[in-house]
């Protein structure tokens, strides 16, 4: 007697690109690149309440050779800019950059006429994939940024954007 087997419950087919994108999105390894205040919120995102490891991203690697996501958390200085660029260059492809906080997006509160030390946004140094505004952004905002990056990689969001009730 024949029984029908629904093979789609056992075996799935997909394009290799989609599989690679899914695996990369769910295992982003950030570079420990906390520069200033936003770094503390990044550490809090790795803490137990916000738990970045739900998204596979708790493995913060100190070495750029082993990381594929650079979360620029804090102000980039003109003295620091060559070091940041070197770290970006040392990361292997494929790599992504999240600019976390107002300083990384545009220099933040430290831009004033006559300023001499701050690089006005890390995207002046290299391309950025996701911008997370805030001073500092909440850890939930960082997690939302990671989900936006996952959507950029896979084309699908892990779960829908929450719209506040009217």
């Amino acid at each position, binding site marked *: 007697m024949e029984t029908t087997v629904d093979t789609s419950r056992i075996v799935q087919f997909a394009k290799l690109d989609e599989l690679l994108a899914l695996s990369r999105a769910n295992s982003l390894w950030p570079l420990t690149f906390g520069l200033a205040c936003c770094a503390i919120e990044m550490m809090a995102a790795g803490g137990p309440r916000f738990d970045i490891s739900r998204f596979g991203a708790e493995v913060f690697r100190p070495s750029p050779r082993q990381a594929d996501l650079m979360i620029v958390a804090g102000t980039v200085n003109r*003295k620091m800019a060559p070091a940041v660029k070197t770290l970006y260059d040392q990361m292997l492809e494929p790599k992504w950059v999240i600019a976390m906080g107002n300083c990384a997006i545009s220099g933040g509160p430290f831009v004033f006429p*006559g300023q*001499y030390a701050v690089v006005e946004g890390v995207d002046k140094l290299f391309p950025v994939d996701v911008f997370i505004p805030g001073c500092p952004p909440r850890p939930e905002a960082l997690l939302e940024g990671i989900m936006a990056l996952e959507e950029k990689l896979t084309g699908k969001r892990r779960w829908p954007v929450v719209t506040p009730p009217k």
Partner: protein
Amino acid sequence: MNPTLDQLCDQFGRLVATGPSGSRPPSNPPAPDAPPAPIQRTEHAAKGYDLEVTVAPTAVVMAAEIMDRAGFALDAITGVDWIAQEQMEVVYDYFHPTAPGRVAVRTRVPRARPEVPTIAAVYPGANWHERETHDFFGLVFAGHPDLSPFLLPEDATFHPLRKDYQP
């Protein structure tokens, strides 16, 4: 009634009266347009320090030695650019770890030749404070072992806290 501060007043009085020229001892009664007395007791609640001493630039090392012998620690070295008066001021703040008393030692140098002797031999901590003040104002601390840029990039040639600084 603070014996430490009273002793300091005595020692500074001798330094100001007999030390290198630049400040004259206060006259009694003070002339109406005379600059403020070089040694002034101030109200802590009003100013945040108890004693304010103005010395000539060449006397800052002796002033630092007086403070060191009295057991004070160096709090901060502040540079101020009085561009309208064509002077730069350096303020040395001292605090005492075990006795009450906050002392500020001030000196002024001409803006065209801003040079003050270093006190890094008396207080090793002044090394960093003076290097930072040089970064910001271009004040030269004569005898300092290393006045290369500290907070600014290694190749910086500008002094950003000067009032006539243009980026």
